C-alpha cells in the first residue's frame, strides 16, 4: 500500500494540529505586545482578572482543590512569597516557597481562628538551621480570618520577609473577599437545593379522578365478571405501587411504558374498545432516563381531554425515536384538540384546573433539562393533539 489514505489523513491532521498550535501561540504573543492602555489601566485589569479567576475556583466552597487553584492567583495579587488558605482544622492549600512551614501553620493560625482578628507573626516557624545556611531568610506571616456571617470558617496566611502595614491591610481585604466568594457559593448551593425541592414538589401524582373512576369501573365487574374484576384490582395495585414509589425522581422509558400499559388497561375497563392505542418504540431509547411519571400524565391527558369528549372510538399513537444525542417521544391523539391560546395560558400557569398534568410535566422538564426541553404541543380545536418531548439520552447525573 504505497500511499494509504490513512497516512495522508494523518498527515493532514498533524499539519492542521501544528498550524493550530502555531496560530494559538502567535495570537497569545501578539496580544501581549498589543497596546493595552496605561500602567494604571493594566494594573486594574490584572487585579480584577486575577480576582475573577480566583473567584471561579472558590465558587464551589472552601475545598482543597479549589483553594489550591485560587491560592496561586491570590499570591500573585498580594505579591507575597507564599500564600496559604486554611479552614478551621487543616491547611487546604499552600502556594509558593517555604512549604516546610505548612505543618506549623495551624498552630500559628489557631489564635486567629479563635479570636477572629488578623494577626502578624514576625517569626513564622521554627528557625530552620539547615535552611538558613542556604540563605533562606525567615518569614513573617500575616494571618487574616475568613468570616462567613459571624463565624470564622478559615484563614488566609501571607508570608513575606517583612510584614508591613500594606500587606496586613491587603491580606485582610483578600480574606474578606474570599468570604464574599464563599457566601456566593452558599447562595449557589441553596439555589440548587431550591431547584431540587421544586422538582420534588412538582413530582407528579396520579389524579384522584382516575382512582375514583377505576374503582367504580372495577366495582361494576365484581358481580358480572369476578375474574376480570380481580385482574383489574391487581393491575390497579401494581399501578399505584409504581406511582407511589418513594425512591428516585427518574425512571426509564421502558418502565414508564409499563405504567402506561396498566393505566390504559384500567381505562379500557371503563371505555371498552373506544380507546385504541398503537405504539412505535425504537428499542434504542427504551433505557433512556426520563423524569418519573412524565409520560403517563401525557397519555392520561390524551384520554381525558382528547378522547373522552369525542364521539366514537379514538386513537392514541405513542412513538419513541432515537434522534442523535436525544430521545424523542411523541404522543398523538385524534381527539377534540384544544384551543392553543387557552393551552398557552394553562402552561404559563394562569389558568387552573384542566391540563394540570401537562403543566406539571412541562415545568419539570424545563426544570431538569433547561427551557429548550419543554413540551412541544401542536393542537387545534377538533384537530387532535400532538405532544413531543425531547430529552438528552446521556444523563450521567441521573439514576433511574
Amino acid at each position, binding site marked *: *500500500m504505497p500511499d*494509504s489514505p490513512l497516512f495522508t*489523513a494523518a498527515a493532514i491532521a498533524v499539519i492542521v494540529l501544528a498550524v493550530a498550535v502555531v496560530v494559538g501561540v502567535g495570537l497569545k504573543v501578539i496580544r501581549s505586545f498589543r497596546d493595552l492602555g496605561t500602567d494604571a489601566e493594566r494594573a486594574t485589569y490584572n487585579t480584577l482578572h486575577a480576582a475573577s479567576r480566583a473567584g471561579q475556583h472558590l465558587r464551589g466552597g472552601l475545598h482543597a482543590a479549589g483553594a489550591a487553584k485560587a491560592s496561586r492567583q491570590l499570591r500573585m495579587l498580594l505579591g507575597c512569597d507564599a500564600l496559604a488558605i486554611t479552614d478551621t482544622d487543616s491547611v487546604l492549600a499552600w502556594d509558593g516557597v517555604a512549604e516546610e512551614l505548612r505543618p506549623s501553620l495551624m498552630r500559628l493560625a489557631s489564635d486567629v481562628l479563635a479570636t477572629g482578628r488578623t494577626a502578624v507573626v514576625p517569626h513564622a516557624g521554627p528557625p530552620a538551621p539547615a535552611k538558613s545556611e542556604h540563605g533562606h531568610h525567615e518569614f513573617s506571616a500575616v494571618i487574616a480570618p475568613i468570616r462567613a456571617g459571624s463565624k470564622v470558617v478559615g484563614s488566609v496566611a501571607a508570608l513575606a520577609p517583612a510584614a508591613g502595614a500594606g500587606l496586613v491591610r491587603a491580606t485582610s481585604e483578600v480574606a474578606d473577599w474570599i468570604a464574599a466568594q464563599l457566601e456566593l457559593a452558599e447562595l449557589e448551593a441553596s439555589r440548587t437545593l431550591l431547584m431540587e425541592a421544586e422538582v420534588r414538589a412538582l413530582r407528579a401524582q396520579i389524579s384522584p379522578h382516575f382512582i375514583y373512576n377505576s374503582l367504580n369501573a372495577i366495582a361494576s365487574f365484581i358481580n358480572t365478571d369476578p375474574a376480570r374484576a380481580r385482574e383489574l384490582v391487581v393491575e390497579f395495585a401494581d399501578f399505584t405501587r409504581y406511582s407511589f414509589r418513594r425512591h428516585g425522581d427518574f425512571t426509564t422509558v421502558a*418502565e414508564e411504558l409499563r405504567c402506561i*400499559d396498566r393505566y390504559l388497561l384500567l381505562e379500557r375497563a371503563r371505555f371498552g374498545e373506544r380507546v385504541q392505542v398503537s405504539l*412505535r418504540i425504537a428499542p*434504542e431509547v*427504551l*433505557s433512556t432516563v426520563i423524569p418519573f411519571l412524565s409520560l403517563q400524565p401525557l397519555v392520561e391527558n390524551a384520554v381525558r381531554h382528547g378522547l373522552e369528549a369525542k364521539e366514537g372510538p379514538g386513537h392514541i399513537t405513542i412513538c419513541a425515536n432515537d434522534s*442523535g444525542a436525544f430521545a424523542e417521544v411523541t404522543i398523538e391523539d385524534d381527539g377534540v384538540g384544544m384551543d392553543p391560546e387557552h393551552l398557552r395560558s394553562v402552561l404559563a400557569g394562569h389558568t387552573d384546573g384542566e391540563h394540570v398534568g401537562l403543566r406539571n410535566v412541562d415545568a419539570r422538564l424545563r426544570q431538569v433539562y433547561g427551557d429548550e426541553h419543554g413540551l412541544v404541543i401542536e393542537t387545534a380545536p377538533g384537530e387532535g393533539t400532538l405532544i413531543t418531548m425531547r430529552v438528552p439520552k446521556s444523563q450521567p447525573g441521573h439514576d433511574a
Partner: protein
Amino acid sequence: MNPAVGLVAFLAVSITTAVIGFYGLRISRTTGDFYVASRTVPPWWNASAIGGEYLSAASFLGVAGLILLSGTDALWFPVGYTAGYLMLLLFVAAPLRRSGAYTIPDFTEARLDSRMVRRVTSLVVVAVGWLYIVPQLHGAALTIRITTGLPSWVGSTAVVLVVCVTVVAGGMRSITFVQAFQYWLKLTALAVPVIFVLLVLAGNDTPHQAQLPVNPTGQPATSAYQNISLMVALLFGTLGLPHVLVRFYTNPDGQSARRTTLIVLGLLSVFYLFPTLSGAVGRIFAPELAQSGQADALVLLLPGKLVGGTAGELLSALVVAGAFAAFLSTTSGLVVSLSGVISQDLFGGSVRGFRLAALLAAVVPLGFAFTTDTLALAGSVGLVFAFTASTICPVLLLGIWWRGLTDAGAIAGMVTGALLCGGAMVIGTVMGQGNAPAWLAQPAAWTVPAAFAVTVAVSVWTKNRVPASVNRVMSRLHVPERPVATER
C-alpha cells in the same frame, strides 16, 4: 462480470436498508403487545446488530485479500478483530453500560468532570471516525470498479449519498434492525458462494494442489514484532470504537450487555471462517490476483471465476450485495455516532444541527477517499485500530478501572498517543511502504504503552486534580444495577 449484476445488487441492498430503516418501527402494536415493546431487544438480536456494524469492508473484502497475499500471517487479523471483543467483554461492556453515557466524550466528561477533556475526546473520536470511514469508501470504490467498470468515485459517492439520505431523512430510526439484517446478509453473502465454490471444486477434483508453491504470491513473511503490534492494536482498538459502544444501550442492563458481547464473539467467529476459506481457495486457484494488485477483490471475483455461468453471476450478485451491506452498515453506524458527537459539541444538539453534522461526518471522509487510493483494506483498518488503541483506549480503560485518573492525565495521554501514532503513520508514508521499518509500519506496540504511561504519570503528578465526584461515578460504574422491579 456483467455490470448490471453489480448495479442491481447495490440498488437492492440500498433500498432494503432504507426500507427497514424507515418502516422497521412502523408496525403498530396494540396494548396487548406493550410488554413485548417494553422488553428490550433480546441479546441475540442486539449481538447481530453489533456484528453487522462491526464487520466492515476490511473484514468482508480485506481479510480474504490479505490471506491471498500473505497466507497464514493474515489470520492474525480475524483473530484480533474477534478477540478485541473479549477485551470489551472483560473490561468495558458492563461498566460503560451502567455509566449512562452514550458517547465516549459523554463518558470522559462525566468521569473526569471537565469540559476540556470532553472537547479533546470529541476531536479524537471524530478523527477516528473519519479515518475509519475512508477505507469503507475505498472498498465501495473498488467494488463498483471491479463489478461494473464504472470509475472508482462512483462507488464511494454512492455509499455516501445513500448514507446521508437515510440518516438525514431520519431513516436510521430503527438502526438496530437495519444492522442486524446487515449481519445476516453479510454472513449469507460470504458463506453461500464459498460453500458453492467448495462444492464445485469437490465435484471437479481436477487440480492437484500438492505441487503448488507454499507461497505463491512471493510476499515476505511478517515478523513477530509486527504480529504482536497488530494484536495490540486490534485488541485495544476495539475498546474505543465509537459506533460499537452505543449498541450496548439497547441492552436493559449490564449483565445482558455481557451476554450480548458473548454472542457477538460467537457470531464473529462464525463469520471469519468464510473470508479465511475464501482466501485459502484464492491462494490456490487465483494467485494471479495478488500480482495484478486486485487482492481485495478476491471475494468478489472468486465465484465468477470458479463457478461460472448463471450460477456464478448470481453468486457474484450476492457477494456484491454483501459487500455493500458491509460498507453501508459500518459507514452509517459511524456517521450516526459521529454526528451525535459533532452536533452536540458544535451545533448545540438541535435536530437541524444533527443533520448538518451528519453531512459533515460523511462528506469529509469522501474528500479523503478521493484524494487517496489504497489497495490493502485490512491493513489500513488495522492502522485505525492502532490510532484508537493509542488515544481512546487508555482513557477509557483507566477511567473505568483506576480512581487516580485526572483530566490533565487524560488529555496528556490522548495527545501523546495521537501525536506518536499519527506521527508514525505520516513518517511511514513519507518513507514509502516497504521502506519503513516495522516499528513505524505497525506502531501500536510502543505507542499504546507510551500513551498509557503518560496518562498514568501525568495523573499521578497532578494528583490534586482527581475530581471530587470520583467515588460516586466509580460506584455507579461498578455496582450492579438495582434489579428491575419484578412483575407481580
